[in-house]
């Protein structure tokens, strides 16, 4: 029994890793396909689909749009979430629990419904869809996340340091900007990074709230509707590569800091 368990366990783990990696491996492999269809037999390798992705101005514009939306909406979300967490952790305010509940409420609602609600509301107010409305939608879904992360990292010893800073004559904005924020920098950065990845990958809100200028997932969606196509594989592989690079860099930075 005791000898069988590890063997079975490693076999299981191997099989599940296989399952997890199967689609990615197929995606990347057939991005080097030479022919028109990304199905076996593999007749590559060829880089022609990558050069097509590179030359696709809509795809490149979408890439830029996605980056801009991710950065700006995450900036808004972190600012709102951080301030709210600071306020709720410091002052013993009336209705703290209710406010916490309100701010984190968007976490429990499907993106589809958030997007639809915003779409209907913007529509009735005569606000046309654009990257700005997409950014607003992404900030809505990411604010609760940033709030939760910042809130969890607030502690009492920070309050004391803030008091000390105030006693030494620091103004309120100086306390917040030069004392609190730097102390909470790891949490703020983590919140920002998570927001960026969520926004970067979000589809349905971006789909419902955009028109001509779209984000990368929406552009890939319209690529994808052109059926099985190695170009979609190439675009997907590029996105994968970018994301993994970002994750690795973050991981290395964290590991360095710890060491």
């Amino acid at each position, binding site marked *: 029994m005791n000898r069988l368990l590890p063997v079975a366990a490693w076999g299981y783990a191997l099989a599940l890793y296989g399952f997890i990696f199967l689609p990615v491996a197929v995606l990347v492999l057939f991005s080097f396909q030479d022919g*028109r*269809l990304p*199905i076996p037999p593999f007749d590559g390798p060829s880089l022609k689909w990558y050069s097509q992705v590179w030359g696709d*101005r*809509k795809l490149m514009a979408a890439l830029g749009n996605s980056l801009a939306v991710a950065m700006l909406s995450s900036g808004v979300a972190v600012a709102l979430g951080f301030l709210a967490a600071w306020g709720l952790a410091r002052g013993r305010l009336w209705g703290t629990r209710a406010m916490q509940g309100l701010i984190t409420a968007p976490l429990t609602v499907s993106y589809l419904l958030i997007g639809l609600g915003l*779409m209907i*509301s*913007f*529509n009735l*107010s*005569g*606000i*046309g869809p*654009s990257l*700005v*409305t997409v950014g*607003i939608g992404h900030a809505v879904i990411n604010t609760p996340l940033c709030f939760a992360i910042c809130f969890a990292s607030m502690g009492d010893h920070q309050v004391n340091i803030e008091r000390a800073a105030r006693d030494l004559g620091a103004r309120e904005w100086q306390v917040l900007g030069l004392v609190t924020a730097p102390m909470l920098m790891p949490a703020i950065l983590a919140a920002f990074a998570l927001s960026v990845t969520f926004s970067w990958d979000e589809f349905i809100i971006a789909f419902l709230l955009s*028109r*001509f200028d779209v984000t990368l997932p929406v552009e890939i969606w*319209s690529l994808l*509707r*052109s*059926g*099985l196509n190695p170009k979609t594989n190439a675009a997907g592989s590029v996105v994968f590569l970018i994301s993994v690079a970002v994750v690795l860099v973050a991981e290395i930075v964290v590991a360095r800091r710890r060491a």
Partner: protein
Amino acid sequence: MRTILLATVAALAVTGARAAELNALVWCDHTDPALIEPFEKAHGVKVNLKEYEGTGTALSLVEQSRPGDWDVFVIDGIDVPRAIDAGLLAPLPEAELPMADIFPELVMAENHTRDGKTYAVTEKFGYNTISYNKAKVDAAALADVTALWTDEAFEGRIAIYDYYLPVIGLVAMGLGKETAELTADDLPAIREALIAMKRNARSVVDVVSSQTVLATGEVDVLVGGGEWVTAILAAEQPELDWMIPEQGAVRWSQSIGIFADSEKKDLALEFVKYILSPEGQARLATSSCYWAMPANAKAGAVLSDQQKAALRWDDQAEYLKRAQLYPAPDGDLDAAMQDVWTEMLQQ
């Protein structure tokens, strides 16, 4: 709250409305850069394209927009009267357009003209009929279109194009009905045939996955397909073909017009003129999303022989005789048809 909402967005959205942009609501064939870029370069403008599938979607997009948001409208020929009724389209200056070069069957004055004014011009047309894999299916087995929902030999081998109007039209013709005269009374029989056909079907697919399911061998027959599915693949996969069954096919056509509340009508007209020119027509006929016949006969001089063969340029006279138009239901019948369609999808 609403003022906050408005103020925030208004403040952020001042970057909108640049002068040299044209907003067009189109089917996906217009998004090919090979078609659009020459126009953009010639006029030094940017063309913003929003693609849609199905007139309902387009009208819903227009409804959700402000007046002046849109300039050019590409819409199914059969739905142009609806758009004119809704006051969406502006009259076009016929004298500046190549009206004489449009194939006579495709002028469709009864749809495009009202009180002596022309509101749209046909730009592209083709058929919703049957695409199939010659290597796997004998054309004779498909000659009678009812086989698709009565013959069990097709089980698991067909896919249905996910657009209710042409497929309902095709089924109606199979049942011996005229597409132009469909009423709510015809729907039960159509519903039954659709559901039977769904039982045979592997999947229900949109415009572009239509090509994929045939090209990858997922299915052998595509109901609602036609040259727009297979012509683009003619060179690489000659075994993929299309045919018109005995009962005939549904003819589709796209028309191009200008929105009545467009603020850039002159530029929009230039775009319409470009699309209807022989060069524009040839590029549109062979654009990356789907190929189909151009409406302007002079495009023939620009297309290569190979392209014309794939489009079956020379067979059009006979095909046109055997085709009926899309059904053009009123609001209630349209809703009922969509219900039947959703029900079919849900089977």
